């Protein structure tokens, strides 16, 4: 712009000769003779070239305006370069102005930038002031972007924290459910009972086995009643879990009694060829408890108004 103001560069359309562009079309799309000059680097070498007739024809179709424009830009650059042989405009800048820019950029790099105090004062009216304004714009924009990113990160971290809390709650609930699903109860002295309700998968069977064995050891129980009254369905896989549970119980020296096998379950087990001969099987929990008393040599359970034995009356 300034170059034009000084009249150093002639716009392509002001001069007929210079206005000629590649492919014979000027910026307005007017046809020109199919001859153009191509400026070499720095405008020092110029050569002429003649465009072939077919190319000239193609250009006449007006389809090459983009190419023409590029050539125009190249010529413009050539003119600029030619004029650059003159000494460039120089301005003097006081060192403190440079130091302020240095400090501003350092503040940005060190993440210490504060728009209230670090922006450059625009108190000159020269070319360097334009640069200072641009730097201020850059600094403000960067600061705004950084703030937005920080806010986004803060929100993401808050979301992540909330999610982690939810996951922790779910995990606590899951643990509580696991604990409730393997209720090993001390039915009587030396006698534990494990009522099984619902489906028995591998994970639950492992938890049951682990919990039951631990309780047998800690309470020194000698008998275990596994009550399957609440089990409505059994397959080979479920039966396998039971067999392993029974085997593990016996390994720690406890008598294992299975109670509450429904007729339908018994029939299925029979069909599947599942053999529970390793454990004593009885119809009801009451019978299981009596079997345990017999094993312990205690005869019948004492009658209690309240307490564990009361439920059996």
């Amino acid at each position, binding site marked *: 712009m300034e170059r034009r103001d000084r009249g150093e560069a002639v716009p392509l359309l002001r001069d007929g000769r210079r206005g000629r562009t590649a492919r014979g079309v000027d910026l307005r799309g007017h046809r020109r003779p199919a001859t153009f000059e191509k400026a070499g680097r720095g405008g020092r070498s110029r050569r002429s070239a003649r465009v072939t007739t077919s190319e000239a024809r193609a250009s006449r179709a007006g389809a090459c305006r983009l190419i023409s424009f590029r050539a125009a830009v190249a010529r413009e650059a050539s003119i600029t370069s030619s004029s650059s042989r003159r000494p460039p405009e120089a301005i003097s800048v006081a060192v403190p102005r440079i*130091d302020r820019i*240095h*400090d501003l950029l*350092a*503040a940005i*790099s*060190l993440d*210490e930038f504060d728009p209230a105090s670090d922006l450059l004062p625009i108190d000159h009216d020269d070319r360097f002031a334009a640069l200072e304004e641009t730097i201020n714009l850059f600094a403000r924009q960067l600061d705004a972007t950084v703030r937005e990113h920080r806010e986004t990160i803060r929100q993401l971290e808050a979301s992540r924290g909330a999610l982690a809390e939810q996951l922790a709650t779910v995990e606590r609930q899951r643990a509580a459910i696991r604990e409730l699903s393997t209720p090993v109860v001390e039915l009587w002295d030396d006698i534990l009972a494990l009522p099984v309700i619902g489906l028995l998968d591998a994970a639950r069977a492992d938890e049951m086995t682990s919990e039951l064995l631990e309780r047998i050891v800690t309470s020194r129980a000698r008998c275990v009643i596994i009550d399957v009254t609440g089990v409505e369905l059994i397959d080979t896989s479920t039966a396998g879990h039971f067999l392993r549970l029974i085997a593990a119980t016996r390994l720690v020296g406890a008598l294992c009694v299975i109670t509450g096998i429904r007729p339908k379950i018994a029939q299925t087990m029979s069909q599947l060829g599942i053999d529970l001969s390793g454990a004593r099987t009885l119809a009801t929990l009451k019978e299981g408890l009596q079997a345990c008393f017999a094993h312990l040599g205690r005869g019948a359970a004492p009658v209690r108004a309240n307490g564990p034995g009361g439920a059996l009356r």
Partner: protein
Amino acid sequence: MTRYVPFVEGVTVSGTTVTIIAEAVQTFSVLRQWLLETLGVAAVDPERWYPQADILRTYDKVESLLGGRGLARLGKLVPAKAILPPGIHDAHSVLALLDATYHLNHRLDGVGMFDPATGAMLEGIGHYHYQGQAGARTAVMICDNPYPCRFDMGLFEGFVARFESTVTVTHAPEGCRAHGDPRCTYQASW
């Protein structure tokens, strides 16, 4: 641009100190790489001693890239990572013992510049002179060492900040090493 050069030849800096400097510029990977390349090592060895001239060149680089603000930041970060010797329990003691600690971490021709047993101190790297009064919430520090002015300002701020929540360090108007004067005078308040 100020050039930071040793007062005498043959001065080396402890690897412990250089490690702290390397950690302080860790967030600026370019500077850290510059430090390592200047030292000619892949990593700083706390057991080794490094030429003071190389360390000062690093400060020079920090100043050329990040200006006085960068040096002050570096100075402030160093105390946060420094392990203080026994006997330092407040802002006064940390500033009072700074000169001894400074000499303890430098060697001249392979000889330690401070002997804690005798209190003997070799000359050649300048000093951190402390002027303070116990109980006062201010102290004057006079520096005539080859390290950058703004670095030392940050250093005082960082050391006092280990014991006090608010610290202000101001440079007295009389003379500044950055302008070729032999010493800088600071007032630290907290």
